[in-house]
């Protein structure tokens, strides 16, 4: 206790809190039901709350780790890194935002692509790192997506993409908008080859990502209660000046309106997608 605190009469003195005695990151509070969860157990449960089934946001590597078979993985396009061609500067320089995001996530940009297999079915899988600038799509995301599609065509194998993105990356201005056209054009090539593409929409999939490759799957799968849409709910609320319907832009709402095929629990994802891909590629049942 400092000399100053000793001067304060005990009845108005605030007790020092017990904060800091528990090591960081051992416990996690579920953002949906507020249950306090043991971190290690939560990870074993693929970051799905065991109490309320809330699907928390997870990183791209972890997602691909859960999804792909352990053997024979090959990362694609990791040599492609972002550049600040426009010398974009808002309250921070884009260049600095890139290095902050890179340090924070350990990734060079927001999309990770790995060739591997799911329960023995060869596949190229891509996943968004939402923690990297909100999973925003710039030139690198577009270029890696294109590489993913090209690899599928060369190897004659299906594509699976897990989206989690706020949309286009404003700091790359019109270049980022054009990635929508580029990725959609690539998927047209993939479709011409008769190769399956499964788009998995996770929380959140919005804007330019939603309005391009995320909505161009042969099959649209969503995780429960993921926010999926074109315009953000706040923008819509301001435009129409009325409160939005319950569950608006959530997976269940999209399924009801016909935009997605399936809602799949994260813990079943690998199994369900493997089964779909096996059928689409005429492989024998497992």
């Amino acid at each position: 206790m400092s000399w100053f605190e000793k001067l304060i009469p005990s009845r108005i003195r605030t007790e020092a809190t017990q904060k800091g005695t528990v090591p960081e990151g051992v416990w996690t509070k579920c953002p949906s039901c507020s249950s306090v969860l043991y971190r290690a157990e939560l990870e074993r449960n693929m970051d799905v709350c065991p109490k309320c089934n809330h699907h928390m946001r997870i990183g791209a590597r972890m997602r691909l780790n859960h999804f792909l078979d352990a053997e024979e993985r090959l990362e694609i396009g990791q040599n492609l890194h972002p550049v600040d061609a426009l010398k974009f500067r808002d309250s921070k320089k884009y260049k600095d935002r890139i290095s902050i995001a890179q340090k924070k996530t350990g990734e060079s940009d927001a999309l990770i692509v790995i060739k591997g297999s799911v329960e023995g079915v060869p596949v190229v899988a891509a996943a968004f790192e939402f923690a990297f600038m909100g999973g925003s799509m710039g030139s690198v995301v577009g270029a890696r997506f294109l590489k993913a599609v090209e690899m599928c065509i060369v190897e004659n194998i299906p594509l699976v993409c897990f989206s989690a993105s706020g949309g286009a990356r404003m700091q790359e201005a019109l270049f980022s908008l054009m990635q929508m056209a580029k990725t959609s054009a690539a998927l047209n090539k993939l479709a011409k080859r008769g190769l399956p593409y499964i788009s998995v929409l996770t929380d959140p999939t919005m804007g330019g990502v939603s309005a391009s490759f995320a909505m161009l799957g042969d099959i649209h799968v969503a995780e429960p209660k993921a926010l999926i849409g074109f315009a953000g709910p706040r923008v819509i609320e301001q435009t129409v000046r009325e409160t939005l319907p319950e569950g608006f832009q959530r997976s269940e709402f999209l399924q009801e309106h016909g935009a997605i095929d399936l809602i799949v629990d994260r813990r079943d994802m690998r199994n369900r997608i493997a089964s779909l891909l096996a059928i689409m590629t005429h492989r024998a049942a497992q």
Partner: protein
Amino acid sequence: MNPNFLDFEQPIAELEAKIEELRYVGDDAEININEEIGDLQGKCKTLTESIFSKLEPWQISQLARHPLRPYTLDYIERIFTDFQELHGDRAYADDAAIVAGMARIDGKPVMVIGHQKGRDTKEKLKRNFGMPRPEGYRRALRLMKMAEKFRLPVLTFIDTPGAYPGVGAEERGQSEAIARNLFEMADLSVPVICTVIGEGGSGGALAIGVGDRVQMLQYSTYSVISPEGCASILWKSADKAPDAAEAMGITSERLKELGLIDRIIPEPLGGAHRDMDAIAASLKHALLETIEQLQAIPEERLLELRYERLCAIGNVNDVS
């Protein structure tokens, strides 16, 4: 303040008002003031030239949204003959924020598709301020596929603040409608020429903006988000829109430098709205020239070139 002039044009408006005044006096005055009027007109032209020679991106974005700026139907009226508007997406509704139909340009049959804004309050509401809903994009796609069937080049005119952010639009799949257009336009087997005539607002613009040639009128803009939207997200204040406009590089000149568009169509002094016939004639000339170029390319090659063009867009650093 004259509402037909933007803030930065007010000095021009004042001079023009003075000229009008003199003309009025001139009718019954004994002295010959024609000379003075001529002088003032010269001055007015010089002033306009000087103001327009150093426009800021934010000023250009105001010109792109000028209330008198020619819209798609103004161009259709001046450039094409035999235009017949074709309505509806065959699934849900007809969206008045997009006009589309078959027409002839110099006798050649084409398909025309464009965003349409309204002039007065009633029409603005009818046109939903040029913000399409999914049915608008689906109608555009229906007619593009029809153009493919009947071998008609597709000419699109882009002028929208963006796709409409509304509850119904989301329910009916705004994202999917835009994505589907990008997917199909990448592989449409007829020439596609896209012209930004006013505001090129984000995904709502791109949804009819994938083609073999993308051109912009001099004072139009094209961007991933409006300067106001960008400013309120990145600067946390919509007042910073001029800074956002500058940073994003939304003008035809900047986008041409960046290699994102192919051609700039120069506008008359003071902007397209000062002389609609002149700008329509320039646009018509550019369209005819481009149609001819593209029709000379065999279909397979055309699609290859379009794909290569799309794949080449972006800046990455290969560290391998």
